[in-house]
């Protein structure tokens, strides 16, 4: 049953894509900023995890939370000191400034860690269910990626800050009139996005070799997931991520792996031109 294997591969990949894109989607939806820094933040999370594992033998699953916390702080500081001042500027300005920050971070990572691809190899063996074979580290990454995404959903639904973020996304001015402190909500949103990027980077280091050279590729995936699923909502990112995972898995199976990425982008462009609000429609209220 090759078919089942392709589906399972697609779903495990898709959960990672969802986790990778959910922070980016949140920032875009709430702040209306295309965060070009997102790809490099994920790589930073992965690098920190690998570094901790290689130098201090810290288990990646233990390192996950501190890494996410560190990036959360970084995101908070970046938003509070810089992007908050530009948030209402047109997209050209905000995109360019995050791209500038991305260049700085990218360069810094190349100097500090160098660009050699590296990953965490845990050698956990494989899980076989009937004809479907999966390495355990992939299963763990899948479960945690899904778990993180759902945890964010819970935070958005239940916590006071989560409700504030959703309110700001729905109508910034109304939220401000109701006494929500917009700059703090923005900083929190950006910090959550960065923290999730860090956590996702740690998970990716379990599955793929991480290098700075793929930060653009990762950012591209985030674009595609956002457009497929729709902006700013957790369910949107989840649907978009799983859809992209399945599309790439089947596309790679039928047309060869080198064309899998192309199919994702092609689909995104078609969707952008025909249905720019995403598959899940206009706005989610979580």
């Amino acid at each position, binding site marked *: 049953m090759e078919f089942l294997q392709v589906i399972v591969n697609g779903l495990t990949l898709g959960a990672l894509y969802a986790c990778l894109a959910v922070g980016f989607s949140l920032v875009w939806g709430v702040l209306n900023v295309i965060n070009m820094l997102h790809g490099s933040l994920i790589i930073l999370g992965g690098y920190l995890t690998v570094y901790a594992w290689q130098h201090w033998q810290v288990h990646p699953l233990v390192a996950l939370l501190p890494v996410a916390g560190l990036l959360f702080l970084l995101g908070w500081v970046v938003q509070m000191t810089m992007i908050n001042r530009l948030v209402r500027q047109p997209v*050209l300005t905000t995109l360019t400034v995050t*791209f500038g920050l991305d*260049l700085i971070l990218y*360069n810094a990572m190349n100097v500090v860690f160098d660009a050699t691809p590296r990953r965490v190899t845990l050698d956990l063996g494989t899980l076989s269910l009937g004809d479907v074979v999966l390495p355990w580290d992939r299963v763990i990454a899948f479960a945690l990626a899904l778990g993180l995404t759902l945890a964010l959903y819970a935070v958005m639904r239940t916590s006071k800050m989560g409700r504030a973020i959703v309110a700001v996304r729905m109508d910034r001015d109304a939220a401000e009139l109701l006494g929500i402190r917009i700059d703090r909500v923005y900083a929190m949103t950006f910090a959550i996005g960065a923290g999730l990027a860090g956590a996702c980077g740690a998970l990716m280091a379990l599955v793929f070799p991480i290098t700075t050279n793929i930060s653009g590729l990762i950012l591209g995936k985030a674009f595609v997931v956002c*457009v497929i699923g729709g902006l700013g909502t957790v369910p949107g990112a989840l649907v978009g991520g799983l859809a992209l995972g399945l599309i790439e898995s089947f596309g790679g199976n039928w047309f060869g792996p*080198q064309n899998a990425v*192309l199919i994702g982008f092609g689909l995104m*462009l078609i969707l952008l*031109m025909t249905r720019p609000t995403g598959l899940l429609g206009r706005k989610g209220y979580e």
Partner: protein
Amino acid sequence: MKRSIAVFIVFAIAIALVPLGGNNFFVQQATFVAMYCTLALSWNLIGGYAGYPSFATAAFVGLGAYAGALLQNAGIPMVFAWAGATLVTGVFAALLGFGLLRMKGHYFAVGSISIVEVLRLIASSWSSLTGGGEGLNLPILAGGPEFAGRLYLFAMLSMMVIAFGMTVWVDRGRLGFGLRCIEQNEDAADMVGINVTRYKTMGFTLSALCCGTVGAISASWVAYIAPTDAFSILMTLKVPVMVLLGGPGTILGPVIGATGFVLLEQTVWAQFLDYNQAALGIVIVLLIFFLPGGLLGLTRRTSRIPATAAHPVSQEPPAATGHPAAVETVTQAQSSKGVHA
């Protein structure tokens, strides 16, 4: 306006005189300056006048490079290959414009940036045509490096002059007026009878033409192209930054920005090879925070305070809609209301 044109003519003559110095390094730098001036002037048409944040520059440059390379390798003389590449890029941009220009703001930005990525992926995977990741070699021009360097300098310089001429033509004509209206308030422009789709597509196509030629010329110049160099995300973001540096929506801003940027890049950042990108990033961040109107914005900050602020917002638009004066009044009234912010 007249003064800007005069400044540009002096600048173009200065570039043309660079080979007299006899130093090949300066000839190469001058070629880069002319090349990026062309790209910046082109981007300005859609990004500056119409306010559409296009990040497709590298897509057009890369497409032009591949089209030119394939034509040249098929035995077509170099200059005709460049012309062919221009045509291919123009047709591609016009067709693309129909789909892409339906989006606005963030979606347009992401869509245009993805075009670069899609073309790069196609160029990498379509090995039978494009040589895949190994790239394509082009015939090296006979006559030695001295002659070739000068020839490519004058080719790029001609493109710069053409792009500038195009900018002046757009700036003075109906098209520029329409694009500026779209920049201020697209819905209002549409309502008073500007054919928004046609103007945007024209602006977008014009902004692609010279990029295609420049791509083809630079492919011949370097005599080798590969997907990652031809469709470079870095270039696609550099060009708008240059225009922002100079001053978007002006005729001289892109020239000033591109020249300043290239000289800065070559002289200062070449000293810090390991920190090249970080230096570029820092310049971008500083530029956005401290020089939001570009270098030209410094000289006219005082005169840009809108004179329309005193107009009553409820002013009735003149009955003759479709007439340029009517459009201006409507868009001014809209902008004083702050609608387009």
